[in-house]
């Protein structure tokens, strides 16, 4: 992600590999990673001449915020949940669930 943010234009997988600091990441690894990130909506891809070019979709601050929230969520469900008191605990109700509840209790 950092590599993509730093560059001002979309990059191909090979270019990402080249710009990665230090180590030799395998081409395949980077490729898989970028594909997954695209699925999650973090990057967009554009095919130019049969080569995929990737650009970031979310900006840095949003991303770090998201990561922090994930971490917090993990910590909460892991250690903190039993040590704190809250209004409700679920972090994973879907919209359908909520609608179901609304209907059931006439809210």
């Amino acid at each position, binding site marked *: 992600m950092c590599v993509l943010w730093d560059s001002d234009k979309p990059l191909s997988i090979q270019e990402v590999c080249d710009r990665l600091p230090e180590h030799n990441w395998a081409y395949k690894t980077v490729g898989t990673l970028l594909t997954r990130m695209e699925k999650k909506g973090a990057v967009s891809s554009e095919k130019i001449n049969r080569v995929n070019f990737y650009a970031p979709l979310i900006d840095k601050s949003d991303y770090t915020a998201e990561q922090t929230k994930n971490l917090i969520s993990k*910590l909460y469900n892991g250690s*903190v949940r039993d*040590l704190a008191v809250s*209004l409700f*605990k679920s972090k994973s*109700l879907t919209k359908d669930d909520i609608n179901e*509840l609304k209907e059931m209790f006439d809210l």
Partner: protein
Amino acid sequence: MTEIFKSILIMSLTAAAVSAFLLIIKPITRRIFSPRWNYYIWLFVLIIMLLPVSLRLPGHIGYRSVSIPDGGYPEVYAVSAPAQDQMTLLQLFDRYAGILSKIQLGGAILFFGIRMFGYVRFIGLIHKRSAVCNEYKSQINIPVLKSEFIAAPIIVGLFRPVLYLPDASGEKLKYVFMHEMIHQKRRDLIIKWLAVLASVIHWFNPFSYIVLRQIDTECELSCDFEATKKLSAAERKEYMKTILAFAEINTTGKPLVAQFSSDKRLLKRRFSLIKTPPRTCSAMSAMSGLLALIILLCAACVNGRFKPNKSPESQNLISMNSDTDGSDAAIEQKSEEAPNIKPEIQPSLPKISQETVGSSSAKNTNAETPQTKLKKTATKSASEKSSPEPTSSDSSGNSENSENSRNSGNLNTQRKSPKIKSTESFDDAGGFNLISLKNDNGISYIRDVLKQDGKLESNASSSDLKQSYIVGSYSYKDNKAKKNGNVCCDENGNISVYFETNSDNIMGVSISDSATNEPVGSFGVLANNDNVYSFCGLNKDKSYDIEIESKTNGEWAVEGSYIIY
């Protein structure tokens, strides 16, 4: 160290049993008892896990040896012996107890560390982007902060609780405060921390996590119940809407399969409770209180039953073994002609006394303590009978003579349950047990039992009680201590001694470490009252010296035999 571990294990087992019971009756209790009862009943389980509450029912306990002041032996009276069958499992366990306790401690520290680490990190993270909100000071009495990263209102902090609200809270916070305030008032945070503590200590017990979950659930349910008790139907709806509003802040498109069903289920339960709260009448409450008390008492009794034995020196003996009821100290008759004279000595005087023997073994004592009453009768009968006839005044083993006067007819009937050994042991050496022999069984009976076990008679210079037993005699003519050196204890870590003498006198037995000559313990034995005195907790790899002497001032001759096994 291992004592604590054993206690923890017992507490764990009891808690598991009670938890299982509560889970089983949950469908019923959920319906007929208030949410409050359902919440607080789990507190009992917590108490069981955290406090070694136990009720000790009277029963068999060994004693710590009382330390002997110079010239004095305490007098000890008989008590029942521990059941033999219980012990072998425990013996096996004892071997590994040390390692297991270290594992338990290590695990507890590990789990505690993980939790604390995560907790501190969490608070650090949510606190970073948070801002104090002073506008709610009127509605809630703890500080309120709004944090960017939090998904639902949460109170953290055991000593200085703080409420964190999500940024997107909106203004409809009335019910949030209501809910959280009840948590605060009831000190639910403390209860939850205690529950976590219990789960850390009892990390190996799967039930502790069940308890954790149950407390969590019931806490929320009862809180909702309390919060909405006095609300109108419309207000209840608002309450529920508030909860849903917060839930909507963080909906995910894809459900995390493992979690969502239980979270949704919990919300359903909560809402049902809020919408149609159960009505509890006072009769129900009374009954529920009673049930809770019964559960706690049962748990305490179970706890007490299996507690590792540790009795303070001053503890009174409880009941006498029925074996010795009415049965008396038989005065040993060496000659076959005279029948056994049985003086009426009532051995139902359970007390360890520290009186020096000097005063009480004298013919007459003026103090009216029970022991001395005993002494008086003993003295009387001793002087009544014809002068003792030491058929064996030589120091060679004279157990053959004692055999003659014993009713060997009893042997066959008694063989079924030979209670001549103590199988109990203490962590420290010096504790001892008393075992009462029935029905005139004596040295010959013990020998028979031992021979049955394959043990052989050994000589007095050294002996391993795992394979042998020692028979010896004591005569007043020597009047110095009889020493049996280099004795190794038996397979239970015990050395047991039984006396047959020609009069009711106190025999002193002291055991010391052969190598270092350090005394391990000693006791005074009132000979001729059919009790085996069993030293416990000895080291099976060490050898011990046993000294036997008689505390008579020479008024009458003491002669007798003993067996050490």
